[in-house]
């Protein structure tokens, strides 16, 4: 169901050109699905060095699987997207993939999926601007507070409340959380965020190697090297 949400989201990013692009892309998607499944099976195959898989590796694999599905669906040609638009699409698909890897079992993952489904509308742009303004205000507030604390050496009792509010603003869907669930959601979100960063880094490093012509067809070795370096 969440893979479907991923696909729907990514298709929505294509806009009015979707039917034409799907037709154009269908052979590539068909062929690439073999590449993906082959490469993913190699990516997913455990290093023979360790007998026990670390949990974070499985999260990273799960994220990569879903992200590559999303990337294939949403990105089409160079002509239709500027670099900035493609970057936004990549980031959005990464966030949705991360949330789907969590199966929408947490508040933050449901909030990310919902946010992704509403992307592309003008509301999102307005909301993004508000979030940006809020972050800037928070940064200014932090600077002011550090000066006061240094001078006066008190008011730590208000800083916990304020920092809790800041944390709530950083976690997707945090505004609607109570303090009891905020802690668990934070820990969970950080775990998945790290898996997202690891997965993205692996793919980007492998892609840069590929572009430099250093990546031969021995996919397993290079990607594995990127993952475990």
């Amino acid at each position, binding site marked *: 169901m969440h893979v479907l949400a991923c696909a729907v989201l990514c298709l929505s990013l294509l806009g009015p050109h979707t039917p034409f692009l799907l037709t154009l892309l269908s052979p*590539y998607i068909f*062929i*690439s699905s073999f*590449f*993906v499944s082959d*490469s993913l099976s190699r990516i997913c195959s455990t290093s023979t060095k360790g007998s026990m898989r670390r949990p974070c590796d499985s999260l990273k694999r799960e994220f990569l699987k879903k992200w*590559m599905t999303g*990337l*294939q669906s949403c*990105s*089409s*040609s*160079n002509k239709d997207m500027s*670099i*900035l638009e*493609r*970057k*936004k699409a*990549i*980031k959005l698909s*990464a966030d949705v993939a991360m949330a789907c890897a969590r199966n929408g079992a947490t508040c933050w993952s449901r909030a990310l999926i919902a946010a992704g489904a509403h992307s592309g509308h003008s509301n999102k742009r307005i909301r993004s601007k508000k979030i940006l303004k809020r972050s800037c205000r928070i940064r200014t507030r932090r600077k002011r507070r550090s000066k006061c604390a240094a001078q006066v050496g008190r008011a*730590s*009792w*208000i*800083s*916990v*409340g304020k*920092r*809790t*509010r*800041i*944390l*709530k603003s*950083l*976690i997707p869907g945090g505004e609607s959380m109570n*303090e*009891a669930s*905020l*802690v668990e959601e*934070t*820990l969970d*979100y*950080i*775990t998945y*965020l*790290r898996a*997202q*960063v690891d997965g*993205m*880094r692996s*793919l*980007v490093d492998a*892609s*840069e190697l*590929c*572009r430099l*012509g250093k*990546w031969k067809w021995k996919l397993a070795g290079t990607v594995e090297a990127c993952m475990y370096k």
Partner: protein
Amino acid sequence: MSSSRRSRSRQSGVPRITDDQLAHLVSKLQHLIPELRRSRSDKVAASKVLQETCDYIRSLRREVDDLSDRLSELLASTDMDSEQAAIMRSLLM
């Protein structure tokens, strides 16, 4: 410290994490966040824990942003004719 906690509890409308929750957060976060791991002390100020958590989340999101940048530039700059570009496109596009 205890008097400030009591006064904190009387305050209304200010979101607050309980001490138990905070201890739980600290123990888990010390494994996750490098800054807290370095301190290695049992008593870490609540505000510091929350601050390090927020900073860490922000740094992770900045990294995601940077990686998205790199990937979008890679996809835009690949030479149309190269074999490598074809491989990348088949995987990522």
